[in-house]
C-alpha cells in the first residue's frame, strides 16, 4: 500500500467514524439542553433590545421565535403537560418583533386559551394577545372571529363575544356569517350547537394545521356528546317497554328504536354495555368528549 492510499484510508475511516460520533453527541446535547434554548431566549425579555440585536432582520427573528413557540407547544402537548408557562411570553415577543405575523395571533390564541393539556389555560391572556393583534391589524376580520371565539368558548362571556363578532362583521371582506354568529351569541349563553358551529367555522377558516386538528377533535367530541345521551334515552325507552336492557343494537333496530347500528364520527360502532350505557370504542379518538366514556376515563370539563 503506498503512502497516499494509506493516508486516504485513515482519513476516510476518521471521517466516517467522527461524522457518526458527532451526530450521536449532538443528539445527546439536545437531550441535555432540552428547554434551554427557550429559557435563554427569555433572558432577553425586552422587545426593543431584541429589535436592535436583530440588526434589521426583525421578521426573521420573529419567525425564529414563532418556530420555537410551535416547538415548545408541540413538545408540551406530546407529553400531556399542564405547564405551558412560556407560551404567552414567547408569543408576546414574537408579535412585538413582527406585529403583522397573523399566525402568531390566530394559532397562538388557541395555544394560550385551551385548557391543559391542550394549552396554557389562560383565556384572559389570549384576549390580550388578540386585542393587540386587532390594534396592529384592524383590517383582519379573522382576529375578531378569534376574539369572539375565545370570549365565548373559554371565558364564557357571550356579550363580549357578540361584540367582537359584530365589530368583525363590519371589516371589509368579513365572512357573511360573522353577523349571524353575533346574533347567536346574543341569544344563547351556552349552547352545544353554537359551540359546534364556532368550531366548524374555525376548522374551515384556519390555515394552521394544528388549529384545524384541534377544531376537528372538538367537532367530533361535541358530536359524541350530543349523540350518546340521545342513544341512552332510546335504550332507556326500550328497557321501560321490555323490562330489560337490549343485549345488542340489533334488538333495538328490530324493535324499531333505531334505523341501524349507530356509528361514532370515526365510523366505529358505539358499544352497548349491559347496564344500558353507551360508550365509544376508542376514547382517545375524542379527547374533548365528556359523554360515552368507559368507566374510569376522566376528562376535565371544557
Amino acid at each position, binding site marked *: 500500500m503506498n503512502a497516499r492510499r494509506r493516508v486516504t484510508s485513515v*482519513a*476516510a475511516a476518521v471521517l466516517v467514524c*467522527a*461524522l457518526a*460520533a458527532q*451526530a450521536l*453527541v449532538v443528539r445527546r446535547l439536545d437531550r*441535555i439542553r432540552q428547554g434551554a434554548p427557550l429559557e435563554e431566549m427569555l433572558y432577553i425579555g425586552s422587545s426593543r433590545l431584541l429589535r436592535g440585536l436583530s440588526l434589521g432582520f426583525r421578521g426573521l427573528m420573529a419567525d425564529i421565535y414563532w418556530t420555537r413557540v410551535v416547538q415548545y407547544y408541540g413538545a408540551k402537548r406530546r407529553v400531556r403537560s399542564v405547564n405551558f408557562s412560556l407560551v404567552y411570553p414567547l408569543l408576546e415577543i414574537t408579535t412585538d418583533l413582527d406585529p403583522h405575523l397573523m399566525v402568531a395571533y390566530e394559532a397562538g390564541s388557541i395555544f394560550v386559551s385551551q385548557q391543559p393539556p391542550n394549552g396554557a389555560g389562560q383565556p384572559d391572556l389570549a384576549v390580550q394577545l388578540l386585542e393587540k393583534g386587532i390594534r396592529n391589524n384592524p383590517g383582519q376580520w379573522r382576529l375578531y372571529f378569534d376574539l369572539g371565539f375565545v370570549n365565548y368558548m373559554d371565558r364564557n362571556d357571550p356579550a363580549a363575544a357578540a361584540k367582537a363578532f359584530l365589530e368583525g362583521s363590519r371589516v371589509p371582506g368579513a365572512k357573511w356569517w360573522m353577523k349571524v354568529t353575533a346574533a347567536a351569541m346574543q341569544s344563547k349563553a351556552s349552547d352545544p350547537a353554537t359551540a359546534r358551529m364556532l368550531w366548524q367555522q374555525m376548522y374551515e377558516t384556519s390555515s394552521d394545521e394544528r388549529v384545524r386538528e384541534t377544531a376537528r377533535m372538538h367537532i367530533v367530541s361535541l358530536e359524541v356528546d350530543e349523540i350518546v345521551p340521545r342513544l341512552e334515552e332510546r335504550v332507556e325507552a326500550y328497557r321501560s317497554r321490555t323490562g330489560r336492557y337490549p343485549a345488542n343494537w340489533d334488538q333495538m333496530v328490530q324493535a324499531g328504536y333505531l334505523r341501524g347500528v349507530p356509528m361514532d364520527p370515526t365510523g366505529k360502532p358505539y358499544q352497548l354495555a349491559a347496564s344500558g350505557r353507551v360508550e365509544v370504542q376508542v376514547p382517545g379518538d375524542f379527547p374533548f368528549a365528556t359523554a360515552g366514556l368507559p368507566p374510569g376515563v376522566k376528562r376535565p370539563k371544557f
Partner: protein
Amino acid sequence: MTPLPFIAYNTYREAVRDRVLYNLIVFALLMVGSAVLFGQISIGIERQVVINLGLAAITLFGVAIAIFIGIGLVSKEIDRRTLYTVLSRPVRRWEFVLGKFLGLSFTLVVNTFFMGLGFFAAVFYVCGGVHRGDARLLAAIYFIVLELLIVTALAMLFSTFSSTLLSAVLALAFFIVGTFAEDLRGFAQMVTGPAHWVALGVAYLVPNFASLNVASSVAHDQPVAAHLVLANTGYVLCYSAVALAVAVLVFEYRNLK
C-alpha cells in the same frame, strides 16, 4: 521526528509577525471603556452587560482571526510558492494541514487567554471584587475556544480547495448557520417526507454552535453542567476531526502543479 510541532510553531510565529495579536489592544480598550461606562451607570444590570459584551467580543474577535488567518493558511503558501519548499522536505501533505491547524489553534488559545484576562479584569472592576458565579465564566470562555477550533478547522478545509474570498464567505456562512443549528433541527422535526430527511441531514452536517454559547446563562448565574462540558468537548473533537479529515483528503489529491 514528526514535523508537526515545527509547522505549528511557525504558523504561530507567522501570525504574531502579522500583528494578529494587535486585536488585543482594541479588545482591551473596549473592555476598559465598557467597564468604566457601565460601572458608573448604575442600572442594575452592569454585570450582565459587561459579561455579555465581553464574551461576545472574545467570540467575534476570535472568529474573525480564525476565518481570516485560516483561509490563507494553505492558499497563501501556494501563492507565495513556499508550499513547494515545505513539501520538498520530508513533510507529508496531511502533516502540513494538521500542523497549520494546530498552529492557528494555538494562536487563538493564546489570544483568547489574554482577552480572558482583560475580561476578568473588567468584571472585577465592575463588580468590585470576585463574584461567586465568576468561575462559570471560565466555562463560557472554554466553550468559545472550542467554537474557535471548529471555525479554524472549517476555514482550513475551505482554503484547501477554494479562493480566499470564497473560503471566507463559506466559513462565515457556516458560522452563522451553525448558530441556528438547533432551530434547523427543530424545522426538520416539523416537516415530513423527503424535506424532513434533507433538513435533518443539513442540520447534522452544519456545526452546532448553540450548545457552545452559554453567555446568557452565565450572565444570569446559571450553572454550566459538567456533562455539558464533556459533551461539548467530545462534539468539537469529532466535528473538527470530520472537517480536518475532509481537508486532508482534498489536499492529498489536489494538483499543486
